[in-house]
């Protein structure tokens, strides 16, 4: 099932570190399989992807969001 969420990319320093997407409603996703140009702290983006329930991580900061595509959102 595909979902689309808008939020800000952040670097989480949990454990060995992870990439997070904080949405405007306060949900934190752990970004998975993201292209390098998405992973810029503070970048506001609209991400389309899939929640991977079958994946477990060391960061454990929220649902795992596997990125299919994204577009930069201008402020």
């Amino acid at each position, binding site marked *: 099932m595909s979902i689309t969420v808008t939020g800000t990319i952040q670097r989480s*320093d*949990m*454990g*060995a570190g*992870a990439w997070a997407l904080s949405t405007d409603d306060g949900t*934190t996703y*752990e970004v*998975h399989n993201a292209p390098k140009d998405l992973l810029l702290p503070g970048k506001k983006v609209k991400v389309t992807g899939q*929640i*991977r*329930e*079958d*994946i*477990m*991580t*060391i*960061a*454990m*900061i*929220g*649902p*795992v969001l596997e990125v299919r595509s994204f577009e930069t959102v201008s402020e």
Partner: protein
Amino acid sequence: MLISKLVPKDDMKKLLLVGLVLIGLCFGLFNFKGLASQGEFEEIVLDFREDIPISQIDNQLSAIAQQFNLAPQLNSIFSLPDNVYIVKGDRATLKALQKSPVAKSTEYIEPNYIYKALEVPNDPEYNKQWNLRSIKVESAWDETKGSGVTVAVIDTGISPVPDLKQTKFVRGYDFVNNRETVTDDSGHGTHVAGTIAQSTNNNYGVAGIAYEANVMPLKVLSAFGGGTVADIAEAIKFAADHNADVINMSLGGGGDSHLLKDAITYAHRKGVVIIAAAGNASKNAASYPARYPHVIGVAALDPAGEKAPYSNFGAGVDISAPGGVGTGAGGILQETINSDGQAMFVSFQGTSMAAPHVAGVAALVKATGMKEPDQVLNVLKKSAMRVKNDTLNHYGAGQLDAAAAVKLAVRGQISFQDFFRWLRDNGYLNPRFWIDGGAVALFPKLAMVLGSYLLAWFLRVYFPFTWSWSLLGGLVAGSSGLFFLRGFYIFDFPQVPFRVMGSSIPEIGNAIAGNSILNPLFASVLIPFILVAFLLNKPMWKWFAIGTALGVAACLGVNAVVSPAVWGFGSGAIARIFLLINALMCYSLALLAVKEEQPR
């Protein structure tokens, strides 16, 4: 056959029993050496009598020097008045001295035992490991360092950094790359393994908790720090089939998986203690696999022993351990690899770091000879430092205490009585839900219910009325609420409704916030007064109001004695007086309302 013909069968049995007892007794006596023979000494203390002339002591000293070829010396300049002398010698010398004529001039001759201070490892960075001191690992090391126990680390793999050189490894597997060699490409697994069994007392780097235990590296997470439940489940089975005693999983996710659950049940049945991190989303339930039955879910503590801000809490949290805050001095320091694969000392934070503390201590507990995983969990929980007023279950059974855990394990098995008493005291008896013992103080609650019934009984003696469900309902609502509901934590379900339903009327004002300071608007005569005023002319509901007034009177009365904390009134005499006056007013209110009922 011959004996059985000569001796009747029953006597035969008795004979056998007596024989067995005698053999056991002899064996026990033979092996009993007494406590005194366990100490180490290299010197012998001679305490000469004070009632003999100094010249005689000098004679004896020179006799010792000649006969035993020893040079007696005063222990220190302060020993002169007591005539305490020291000679070098072992057990044989000690016996010879005790048998020699010298003994007659002494008060006693005894070994100069060497007492050791707690073992402080010589690792130069050990002073930065606040986390190890906070779990009191040094006293635990007096008993065991985890020798003979195998801890499986299901993680990103383990790289052979210098501070793992003396650490013992057993064969593991890399489920990501499907090969036997297991190395780390993230730095996480190596760090976690370090907390469990970093090489210690090697004059290098930092220490680990169970540093004589074997480590089994199992890689299921890739460099980015994620992996599939299928690989994790296989790794758990691998560990169980290869004689792992403890499994550490510093990983988690949101998905419930039958495969994973089955693997955990399998490993638990094989006697493996399974530990997992509670998760770092700061939400009120642990992530999977920590939330599964048979898995010890670990929440994280900051250096002050408070819940770390990121740590999950509530359902699924069994115990708490240091997870650190930040990546500086407040984090957990171990040696691991950086992104270029080079070894370095780094501080990490997370429930990922808290779980291996519990895994390390579980290994120490298992090394004392405790086998059953449920027993190990009980020892860990029972020995944990309880945190008072932990209404949201931030800490589980409490903060991990390595020293107390190992001591408890060594002291022997927990008897069924102990266990049952502990279960009951902590409210763990409900099998369906995990009930937090800290949430409900049972005794005051029972006092409130009983007190309200006593008050009602008292009223009834003077003003006869009939018991009704509405009265009983009022009594319960006013005095205690459905207090057993308060300790319920159901996964992903907000706990607030349970706290509110589990609260009496006077406590509702503070149930939402989850603290124990009474709100004076609720903890007063106000609500019973409103209820009585509105319901007095309703034949059935009136009894609910009366019951409520009596219940609130009992609740306030008990609170005035047991815990008189009222918002704005402090927790001293003023709060007590406030509660007592209101309790009396509630009782008077009930009295008036009942009087109203009586035919004049």
